[in-house]
């Protein structure tokens, strides 16, 4: 399988604190990777570096073999191809659900209004929000907002979606509706990198699980290997704290 995202020797510091201390990993097309670990282990920073919301200090990130920091990759196009779903949803507050899903298509992909709207409707329908086209973010619940945010990302026809703790800001009864949308995406073969605390999702939907600890990848493997037979004491402790 071809590697879509490859990360090599990635380092990132905030001030004197080194959050990422040399990360190597890759994700193949259609693969779902769950990144787990306690808070402060660098999971979110890793995703934010892959999306270039943070500039890495060292190392390289390759997208289809091309170094996105060097090889003259068009960053707008890269961002369109590598979508991101945030913990805090970050829907555009000045737009209703429909326009949230249209803005990027029109501005970045230069699609026509008609095409953008048709696409936006299609994906809002897909995440079960087809009825809420005219609702502003402030009128939606957390789970609804996150589903619109996923539709907004899908409308850009991304190749990879990065999920940064997509259910952590949700009330427990809304977690399920978002996870089932993500599960459906995984089954359709979307390449996904998911930072999550939902071990059930990691077990059921992922092809590989990455355990991060102190800015490095401590363990990596299939869900059965990492979640079923943890090798290190640290991971065992982490997993038992999640129950």
């Amino acid at each position, binding site marked *: 399988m071809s590697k879509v995202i490859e990360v090599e020797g990635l380092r990132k510091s905030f001030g004197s604190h080194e959050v990422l201390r040399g990360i190597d990993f890759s994700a193949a097309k259609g693969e779902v990777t769950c990144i787990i670990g306690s808070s402060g282990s660098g999971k979110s920073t890793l995703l934010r570096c892959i999306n270039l919301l943070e500039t890495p200090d060292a190392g390289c990130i390759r997208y289809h073999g091309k170094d996105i920091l060097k090889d003259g990759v068009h960053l*707008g196009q890269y961002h369109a191809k590598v979508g991101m779903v945030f913990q805090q949803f970050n829907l555009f507050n000045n737009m209703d659900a429909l326009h949230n899903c249209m803005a990027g298509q029109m501005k970045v992909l230069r699609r026509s209004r008609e095409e953008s709207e048709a696409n936006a409707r299609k994906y809002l329908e897909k995440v079960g929000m087809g009825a809420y086209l005219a609702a502003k973010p402030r009128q939606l619940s957390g789970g609804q907002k996150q589903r619109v945010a996923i539709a907004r990302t899908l409308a850009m026809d991304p190749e990879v979606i990065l999920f940064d703790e997509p259910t952590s800001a949700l009330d427990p009864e809304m977690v399920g509706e978002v996870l089932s949308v993500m599960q459906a995406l995984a089954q359709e073969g979307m390449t996904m990198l998911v930072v999550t605390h939902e071990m059930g999702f990691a077990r059921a939907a992922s092809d590989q699980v990455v355990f991060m600890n102190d800015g490095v990848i401590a363990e990596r493997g299939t869900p059965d290997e990492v979640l079923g037979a943890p090798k290190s004491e640290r991971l065992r402790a982490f997993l038992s704290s999640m129950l």
Partner: protein
Amino acid sequence: MPTTFFGWVSFLLKEYGGLFLSGTAMTLLVATTGTAFGFALGLLAAIVRCIELPHGAGAFKRALVKAANALLGVYVQVFRGTPMIVQAMVIYYGSMQYLGLDLDHTAAAILVVSVNTGAYMAEIIRGGIISVDKGQFEAAHAIGMTHWQTMTTVVLPQAIRNILPSVGNEFIVNIKDSSVLNVISVSELFFQAKSAAGTYFRYFEVFFIVAVIYLVLTLVASRLLRWVEKKMDGPENYVIYGSQTDSRAEIVVHGEGEGDA
């Protein structure tokens, strides 16, 4: 000659109604165009002051932004730190004596109000931009928008909505404070009133009328601004299309409108 207060008021209104009217028109012209230009000026200044250069930016770009920021800092400090009445004198007579420009009174008035308002607006709008949640910038960048697209489609619409009450404040201040421009003979309301009052020495009655006119103007202006705010917020209700039993149903949902009065 009238003998009572109301007698004088109606006499003066008859005699000088046209003068009051043209003065009011001039006041409104100076206040609206001054506020509009000032807003544009402040917007430009605020956008420049909010530029964040990426880490890899060259030395030249860095120096340019720094210089622009310093210049804008001076502009804001000078025009916020001196009275508009003094600015009017300095700009009008300065341009005449040293630049050889014979500025039209109205043009000079609009210029003074614009640059003065711009200095305040720059800070108001900068505050508005800062108040927009950082996640909005990140989400826009994450779907590939440029800094400019992020600003124009996501951040500024929210920032401007948030600062609308302050912008309205500036407009109302300008309706009243344009009266100081009588010192450079702009034929606004106060200037016209002075000449009307001088003929019969009825200062109290004339300025009573003028006070009422100013009050009406500011009242109407604040009502108008509230209406614009409501308009920008859009409807509090929205429609859900299709219910579980009837796909063509339209259900109107009354929004909570968090944080909106």
